[in-house]
């Protein structure tokens, strides 16, 4: 692919970013029914959970709930740490420390 064709492709891919992320920015003036407004309040928590869950629970293409799934163990440790400290950065550090220790140990 030459440079021009590549940049054109990048522009088209960026157009999908504009289209999807901007969708209800562009339609912001349309009235949304109250129930939908209410339902959208659940989106952040639900969406984040849907993104995170496979990262922790799926290992090598299948669901893994065993001790050999070090991301799951590190994730559980990070959750416990977060509930004590309520600090995202501390959670990140503790999770990575557990993850790296287990990775090197196995």
């Amino acid at each position: 692919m030459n440079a021009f064709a590549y940049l054109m492709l990048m522009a088209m891919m960026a157009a999908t970013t504009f289209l999807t992320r901007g969708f209800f920015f562009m339609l912001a003036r349309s009235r949304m029914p109250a129930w939908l407004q209410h339902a959208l309040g659940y989106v952040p928590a639900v969406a984040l959970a849907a993104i995170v869950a496979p990262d922790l629970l799926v290992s090598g293409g299948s669901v893994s709930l065993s001790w050999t799934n070090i991301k799951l163990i590190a994730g559980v440790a990070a959750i416990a740490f977060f509930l004590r400290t309520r600090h995202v950065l501390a959670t990140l550090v503790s999770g990575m420390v557990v993850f790296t220790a287990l990775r090197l140990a196995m």
Partner: protein
Amino acid sequence: MNPLPADQADREKIALRDGIRTCAQAMPGLLAWGAVTGMVLVQSGLSIWQAIAMTLIVYAGSAQLAALPLIVAGAPIWVIVLTTLLVNFRFVIFSAVVGPHFAHLHWTRRLWYGYFNADLVMAFFPQRFPAHTMGKPVGKLGYFKGLAYSTWWAWEIGSLIGILLASQIPTSWGIGFAGTLVLLGMTIPLIVNVATLAGVVVASVISVAAVGIPYKLGLVVAIVGGIAAALVADRMSSSPDAEERAS
């Protein structure tokens, strides 16, 4: 919020700083995550300048990673663009959470700000400005910009580091897991009542079960299913004589 007799511009400036401060806690994870994405771009066969162009122009990590093998394999343009569109589809739902707060702006500015409404922005913004603050725009644009632009900078700097260090840092270190941990730390405080917990559990189960569905569309199914579960739980727990469960 703030007792200062500040005029509009000052309030937006304060809100901007608040947005940057809010985003700061997620910054190390964003940097690490961007770095991993940048590394993968180069390790999969893009040249350094191709990887930089993609990062700066497309600005959508998961869509970039999905399109990557197709580009390297020389797939037809329409397949690549359609894949990108499908992987980005979840952002349509995210835009419905944040977009309506900016109905008062000119459409060109809404188009511009929409581009920056990435995962983290969508997660933070409604915590400060929930749906019932719609139509009260004070402080929102400043806060949004603080979140959105610091997210952009952290992601781009991380990506550039990853692109330039692609050959130095082994992927076996699993640095990208830092991104997962940040999202994890952001999810838990959002679980404020039984209905949200139900939604989170159902969305997680569907998302894990649907992991084989192509183009990350399982994510969209999981979000819709999770919201449905939350609404059902909501209805069951909010009968007139039930206790108020929101904490």
